[in-house]
């Protein structure tokens, strides 16, 4: 019986003065303390009783967390506390990382995106996380501050299951960096929810085409949301596209491979059989979109 609290249970709001202090606190209270960014997952889960945090450690004010910077040589860095609306409204992001903008736009509602962050979306590791696919395909690397100081954590292998990542107690993801994108790339995020906007994904498909020395002249990347315990790379489909000239039949073949390569579950949002079909159709439509776009 789903019966959450009317409000949040008793807890301490903690606002450390530095990353060191925050990390130390999280280590000392491992299992009871949570780093707190936009709170849009955190507050819901603590109210639900799914998380039993006694301490919410507000790291938003710490150094660099609220910065968004673009360097034409190095690329983009988004602080962990930068809300999605700010990312989506940034001209440099719009120009160089349009797939990230599109993904942000699909998350919940405007007022939720005023608080929700991309780094938060990644660290919460929901298989349905809308911005994860684009973050992977743009080559996002997390900058994590832990008990041993800063380290870089690529998203490959980062996700371990629903809500599970390689982050350890004391780790604070401070920002995510993306290398400069190729000017001729194309990226799309196609999401199917029950409502046209605002819902969690029944299926989400991020596809990207980047110029490369392949038979088609492009690399293709495909990441699937809501069809596996973690964001799922459609490797078989990518391999097909890597090795062939692209036409509608090859795209259909790749889409079929994406469908065959996933084993989604039945849940309240959708059935497994439907999800598989949607993986195929949305992958096909997404690939057609990016293929049309890069050839223009």
């Amino acid at each position, binding site marked *: 019986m789903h019966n959450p609290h009317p409000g949040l249970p*008793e807890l301490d709001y903690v606002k450390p003065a530095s990353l060191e202090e925050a990390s130390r606190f999280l280590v000392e209270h491992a299992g009871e303390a949570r780093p707190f960014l936009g709170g849009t997952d955190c507050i*819901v889960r603590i109210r639900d009783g799914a998380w039993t945090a006694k301490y919410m450690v507000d790291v938003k004010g710490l150094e660099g967390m609220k910065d968004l910077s673009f360097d034409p040589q190095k690329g983009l860095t988004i602080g962990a506390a930068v*809300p999605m609306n700010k990312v989506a409204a940034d001209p440099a992001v719009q120009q160089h990382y349009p797939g990230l903008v599109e993904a942000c736009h699909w998350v919940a509602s405007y007022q939720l995106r*005023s608080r929700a962050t991309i780094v938060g979306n990644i660290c919460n590791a929901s298989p349905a996380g809308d911005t994860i696919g684009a973050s992977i395909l743009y080559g996002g690397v997390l900058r994590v501050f832990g008990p041993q100081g800063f380290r870089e954590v690529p998203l490959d292998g980062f996700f371990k299951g629903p809500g599970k990542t390689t982050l350890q107690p004391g780790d604070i993801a401070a920002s995510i960096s993306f290398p400069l994108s190729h000017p001729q790339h194309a990226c799309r995020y196609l999401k199917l929810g029950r409502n046209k906007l605002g819902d969690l994904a029944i299926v989400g498909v991020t596809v990207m085409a980047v110029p490369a020395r392949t038979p088609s002249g492009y690399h293709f990347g495909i990441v699937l949301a809501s069809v596996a315990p973690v964001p799922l790379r459609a490797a078989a489909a990518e391999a097909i596209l890597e090795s062939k000239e692209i036409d509608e039949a090859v795209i259909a073949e790749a889409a079929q491979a994406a469908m065959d390569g996933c084993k989604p579950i039945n849940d309240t949002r959708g059935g497994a059989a439907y999800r598989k079909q949607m993986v195929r159709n949305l992958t096909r439509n997404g690939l057609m979109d990016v293929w049309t776009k890069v050839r223009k």
Partner: protein
Amino acid sequence: MSYHRITLKVNGSLEVVDISGNMTLLQMLREKLALTGTKNGCASGECGACTVLMNGDAVNSCMVLAAECDGAEIITVEGLAKNGEMDVVQKTLVDLGAVQCGFCTPGVLISARALLNRNPHPTEFEIRDALSGNLCRCTGYNRIVEAVKVAAEIEGQEGA
């Protein structure tokens, strides 16, 4: 549980408030500042009835801890009217019959105000998109959308 004393600006007035660590911005507005125009519909960031402007941006106040609001500037539905003159979105919601039970109305007004602040000439899609986080069970939405459209036109004329 931790307790905090915070200072913030609400509808233009400076306020000093004592709050507990688990208190949300929504609870603080309603219970500490008697600003009950902002409504609690779900306590989980889904219905939008608690939408307020926080530092100029629309947020679900049930998804913000009060403790985070030290130094913040908050505008609620009670703060939309200026010098006794209703905001143009308030007027157009009235004029176009876009209010029934009125419970979602405060959140709708704030979302609409935030939209017009960042995008003075929204398309119909942009209006519907911006309002998609405000659930309404009475009106069927179209009159609200129309009211925002008309408000944008009026503000466009006033600005010109």
